[in-house]
């Protein structure tokens, strides 16, 4: 499986260079297990972040995670409960885990929400685009840090 992923990485990077910079991908700097600076210097909006997390057409995070939103039925349990996440992790740690959790655990199930290389067989309408934009990432981070 690792070999297949490697090959896909090669193909994806060739595609993105020939098509120019992938649209809407912010640059960032990882240090340790964190990304300290907000993407594009944006200030997130926690209320918007909450709806992105819950919305099935947005982040749809509840397929895998529980959050403190008692009126939301059918919360998944593939990932850790995000209740209290703002007490367990810093804003900078949460940002890296959203952008690309595979940097910390190569076998992670957590999807990379702001990465476009190294992906195989992406559906056309999503190819070359991150799942969440820089602004959406910052909104989600802003809500998660409030979950103490």
């Amino acid at each position, binding site marked *: 499986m690792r070999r297949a992923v490697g090959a896909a990485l090669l193909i994806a990077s060739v595609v993105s260079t020939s098509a120019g910079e992938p649209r809407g991908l912010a640059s960032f700097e990882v240090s340790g297990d964190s990304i300290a600076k907000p993407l594009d210097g944006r200030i997130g909006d926690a209320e918007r972040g909450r709806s992105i997390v819950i919305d099935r057409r947005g982040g749809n995070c509840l397929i895998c995670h529980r959050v403190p939103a008692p009126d939301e039925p059918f919360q998944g349990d593939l990932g850790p409960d995000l209740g209290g996440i703002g007490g367990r992790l810093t804003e900078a740690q949460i940002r890296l885990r959203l952008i690309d959790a595979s940097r910390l655990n190569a076998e992670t199930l957590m999807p990379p929400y702001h990465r476009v290389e190294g992906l*195989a067989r*992406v*559906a056309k309408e999503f190819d070359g685009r991150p799942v969440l934009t820089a602004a959406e990432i910052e909104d989600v981070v802003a809500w998660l840090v409030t979950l103490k």
Partner: protein
Amino acid sequence: MRRGVAGKALRRALAAVFAAIAPFAAEAEPKARSAREFLSLELAAEQADETLNRGMLWVELGERLWKDGSVPSGRSCASCHGQPGGMRGVATRYPAINRETGALVNIEGRINGCRVQHQSLPALAYESEELLALTALVAHQSKGMIMSVAVDGAARGFLEQGRAVYESRQGQLNIACSQCHEQNVGRKLRGDVISSGLGVGYPAYRLTWQGLGSLHRRLKACQQGVRAAEFEPGSTEHLSLELFLAWRARGIPIETPGIRR
């Protein structure tokens, strides 16, 4: 992350323990679990009772088509095969290699082969009501019998091709079939409980579809879920996956027509 790393260390430790006791353990491999085990009581009751099971409407349509001799050749399925009960056991061996062409065919492909070669009829479209009905009729004859596909000879290459797809991450969400259907069986994905992802209930009646659907349609739905470019129903990729799933289901009984959410 903490969970991931700890989980990895734990898995490694467990693997070491298993390696040590493997020669003494009877069956180290966990048994694959059908989605039937995770159905609500209501849906499980519907699947079990053929007078309630909505999928049986297609099996009944299949029985009518099976006997239908109003075709140019004058030959119905029944003219060559007799009663549908003669198909008992067939579904346990499919998909299988066609000896003449070397191609991998599933039940749908076999039915269409008969239509074209022996009945001088055009192939039925994948997912058409007629093909679903005939496939359900054939598979239903093996209900309760355990899967046992052959994976030697020419089938081996297809099996490995299916395995490679199954174990590779795909789509914008970057998730492999195995990550859900091996590593997270029994966990909740929103309102669904994840099973071992077997094909033993198909064609199945799915509430989401309000009708019967093929295994390949279900596979497409999983690919859509991870935002991957979908393989087409009936494609070699889906057939290879079907063979791999059938091999994973060895020893598990056929349920067709299954009832699913």
